[in-house]
């Protein structure tokens, strides 16, 4: 199994054309780590559905202090990558030394000078980033098999989510063992009859 098939279904009474945001948190980093809006579902009207996949692999890329971005390289848990200077310039390559933990992906700055930014993607969308890594420093990425989902206005994919936004998002879906599932949103609605948005899993398959 290379990916998990998810299908968002809007069964809410929402009349505000709300955006649905999905993100993960990098558990390898300590306090203060900011999350990034990985997927934002927009204009998904009542009874519409929005299928998407959650690949098990990642892609990583780095950017250097000159504003150059490396190609995205496919990454799996336990792999490490290093930014080095070769005859062509700064390049990102798989490191012969794996990550410290088999559950983590590392991006190391092995340049002699200049900071880099390390970005990690899933399904081509930015999932997390670590900025201003000085030479000899590394970014460590680890994600538990769980996603956070909630209703947020005015957010775009790739946006950094501050703690105020994150605190509004209260639903966590375990992806452990899943091969496919429907994520059904209910609630919402106008006026006094409005109820909080709720999420449910249906048609769940391991």
């Amino acid at each position, binding site marked *: 199994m290379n990916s998990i098939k998810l299908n968002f279904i809007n069964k809410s009474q929402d009349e505000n054309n709300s955006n649905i945001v999905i993100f993960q*948190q990098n558990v390898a980093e300590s306090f203060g780590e900011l999350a990034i809006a990985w997927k934002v579902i927009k204009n998904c009207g009542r009874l519409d559905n929005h299928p998407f996949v959650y690949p098990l692999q990642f892609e990583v890329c780095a950017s250097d202090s000159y504003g150059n971005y490396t190609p995205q390289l496919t990454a799996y848990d336990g792999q490490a990558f290093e930014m080095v200077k070769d005859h062509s310039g700064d390049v990102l390559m798989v490191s012969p030394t794996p990550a410290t933990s088999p559950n983590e992906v590392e991006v190391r700055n092995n340049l002699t000078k200049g900071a880099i930014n390390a970005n990690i993607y899933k399904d081509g969308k930015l999932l997390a980033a670590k900025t201003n890594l000085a030479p000899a420093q590394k970014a460590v990425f680890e994600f*538990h098999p*769980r996603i*956070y989902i909630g209703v947020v206005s005015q957010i775009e994919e790739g946006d950094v989510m501050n703690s105020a936004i994150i*605190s509004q998002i*209260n*639903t*966590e*879906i*375990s*992806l*452990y*063992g*899943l091969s496919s*599932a429907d994520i059904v949103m209910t609630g919402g609605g106008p006026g006094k009859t409005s109820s909080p948005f*709720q*999420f*449910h*899993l249906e048609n*769940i*398959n*391991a």
Partner: protein
Amino acid sequence: MTNVASIKTWYSGNWKSSNRKKPPYNGIKIQGTPTYDQDNKFLSAKVSFFDYTYDPDGLQSDIDELTPEQGWTAIPMPPYSPPSPSDPPNQESFTINGHVELVSQPSGMYLRIRLHFGIMAHEELGFIMKFDQTKKTP
């Protein structure tokens, strides 16, 4: 005659390796212990819920025998114990509210949850652990 296998443990997403200094002291922990018959076929699981929201030592409630046939089963409150004068009753401090079920799938017997817990009624959904349908013997 029945036999049990090793305990599996799941932690909520807000779990910290060490407790905080004030509520919420920590998240929740769920442990599952499968039981097998004499032919090593899965029978049931004991499921234990530990809530550290208001109690740094954790408040525990148990479902002693959860079977696939039961479907969604309510998570029980912990047994009542008289509080000390300075503490709230333990049942008021137990914040886990929801249901669990065992789902038989070709790849195993999965424990599924839909529950809320904590000060902000954090919600958790999905499979959290898998038991072998047939106990592996050494």
